[in-house]
């Protein structure tokens, strides 16, 4: 249970949150037609006569969309319904040429499942928590309306019309904006691991309808509102925060919450009521007579199961238990599928897990941050990075030399070995050379030497620093330590 509460003037209120996430299924063509489903094409160029709802056109489902929805269901440990059916949801709007959306109300493809959100004390999530998923059904997306192209007309682009969506409906199991944010991030990670949705919220591949209600501790659920089409994790959290506070204000002023659809304004972080039409929810669902029930064979479901990759929670546990990586590092390295892929490529190139995880977390992430690049565009490849780490392990490079070499790798794209040879950055363990430098350092700093010998042992670090500096960082630190101890005797 989250400790999140709204402080009203009359006491504390709990918040109850459920999310309906619309995730665009990754596929080449649409759910019921052979038109392309990709993003960003010229208006109405990816529209078939089926998507434009011309008379006499018959929908034929895309096997890949069904497969991806089943794989997603299996990834959240959900029931897969071997028998499901498509229904028509009837309403009129300019972005919906059919006059109905083909969806699944009565018999969804995927039933009850769940996922786990992780503890995050800073965000007030005190322990890991299981969030229920009530169902996932498959449905068509609508077209897109543009209102700013003409003073009196709206423009309609049907490229999205008929693209496959999964609607993933959670249980009202979340009790704070942070939990809702964690749920969305975990769901997005799973979708991306599975490869059933690219999770790109900016392009609208994933958007959430946010159901919020408030209640006094221990009381029955309050009346909820639904804020539509919120398209980032941050906005979802803002919408909940605002909506919960608004509802508390209304209730404490003696008012009532109306069950209604609301819109989120990202510029102000507030929600407002959509013009509420009494009939709006009278969708008169009925089974689509153009489509037979969808029946899945065991072989199909088993093929879906066998094709699932290792999922984020399992991967994280393996990193900690088998590879010995710290819990924090493991969580960060597995949060995004691209990071995990890169890291595992590094291990496949022979890097040692713990050393590699620390290096990725500090050096690589630091560099990528500075360059504003994502890990897929890293200028240093996993195999070049593995070579660099190997040069540290075998003593050719010290930690500080490795940093210098890495900088040059970022600039030039050359391999570590090439840079070490070309720039002479090899670490030296040549005791004669190091001893000569130490003698010189001691001679140049008689004051410090005097103080050290009279008991100020903290000055040891000063001599190490001077020696390393005189050798341009190339001396093997272990050898320097040993020889200095001897010289200072």
């Amino acid at each position: 249970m989250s400790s999140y509460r709204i402080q009203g003037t009359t006491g504390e209120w709990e918040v109850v949150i459920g999310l309906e996430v619309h995730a665009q299924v990754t596929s080449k063509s649409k759910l019921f037609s052979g038109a392309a489903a990709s993003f960003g094409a010229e208006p109405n160029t990816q529209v078939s006569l089926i998507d434009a709802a011309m008379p006499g056109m018959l929908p034929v489902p895309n096997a890949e969309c069904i497969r991806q929805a089943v794989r997603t269901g299996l990834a959240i440990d959900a029931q897969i319904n071997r028998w499901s059916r498509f229904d028509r949801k009837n309403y009129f709007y300019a972005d919906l040429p059919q006059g109905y959306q083909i969806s699944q109300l009565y018999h969804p493809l995927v039933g009850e499942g769940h996922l786990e959100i992780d503890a995050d004390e800073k965000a007030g999530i005190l322990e890991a928590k299981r969030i229920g998923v009530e169902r996932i059904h498959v449905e068509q997306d609508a077209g897109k309306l543009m209102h700013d192209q003409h003073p009196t007309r709206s423009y309609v682009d049907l490229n999205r019309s008929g693209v496959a969506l999964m609607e993933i409906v959670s249980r009202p199991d979340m009790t704070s904006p942070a939990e809702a944010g964690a749920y969305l991030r975990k769901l997005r990670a799973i979708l991306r691991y599975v490869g059933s949705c690219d999770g790109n919220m900016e392009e609208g591949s994933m958007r959430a309808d946010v159901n919020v209600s408030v209640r006094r501790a221990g009381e029955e659920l309050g009346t909820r509102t639904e804020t539509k089409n919120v398209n980032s994790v941050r906005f979802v959290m803002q919408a909940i925060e605002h909506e919960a506070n608004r509802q508390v204000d209304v209730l404490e002023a003696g008012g009532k919450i109306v069950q209604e659809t609301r819109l989120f304004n990202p510029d102000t972080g507030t929600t407002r009521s959509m013009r509420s039409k009494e009939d709006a929810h009278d969708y008169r669902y009925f089974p689509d007579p153009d489509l037979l029930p969808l029946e899945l064979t065991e072989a199909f479901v088993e093929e879906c199961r066998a094709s699932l990759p290792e999922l984020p929670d399992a991967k994280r546990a393996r990193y900690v238990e088998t590879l010995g990586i710290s819990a924090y590092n493991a969580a960060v390295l597995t949060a995004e599928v691209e990071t995990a892929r890169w890291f595992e490529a590094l291990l496949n190139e022979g890097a040692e897990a713990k050393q590699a995880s620390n290096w990725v977390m500090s050096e690589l992430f630091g560099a990528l941050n500075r360059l504003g690049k994502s890990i897929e565009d890293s200028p240093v490849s996993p195999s070049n990075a593995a070579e660099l780490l190997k040069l540290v392990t075998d003593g050719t490079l010290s930690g500080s030399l490795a940093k210098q070499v890495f900088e040059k790798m970022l600039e030039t794209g050359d391999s570590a070995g090439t840079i070490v040879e070309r720039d002479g950055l090899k670490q030296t363990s040549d005791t004669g050379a190091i001893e000569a430098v130490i003698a010189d350092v001691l001679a140049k700093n008689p004051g410090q030497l005097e103080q050290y010998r009279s008991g100020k042992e903290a000055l040891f670090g000063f001599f190490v620093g001077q020696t390393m500096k005189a050798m341009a960082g190339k001396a093997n630190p272990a050898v320097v330590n040993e020889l200095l101890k001897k010289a200072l005797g």
Partner: protein
Amino acid sequence: MSVDHATVRKIASLARIAVTDDQVEAMVPELNNILGWIEQLGEVDTSAVQPMTAVIPNVLRLRDDVVTDGDVRDAVLKNAPQAEQGFFTVPKVIE
């Protein structure tokens, strides 16, 4: 089950069909007649019968995920009452 005047008007409005008062007057008994006929089916005990979803024993055919269609903008827009710059245009609808 039966419908009254208000229900007929509501159904017509949801289906975007304009009906006059005279038509509503005529349609109420007509629809109730049909509903009455259908309701007789309820007299048959079907508790042990699986719902029939299709009249022929057939399974839903799925297609492969291949782009085989689209790129026919002119055909798609051909019947549009108004189109501009490759878009359908409609009277401004803004919530």
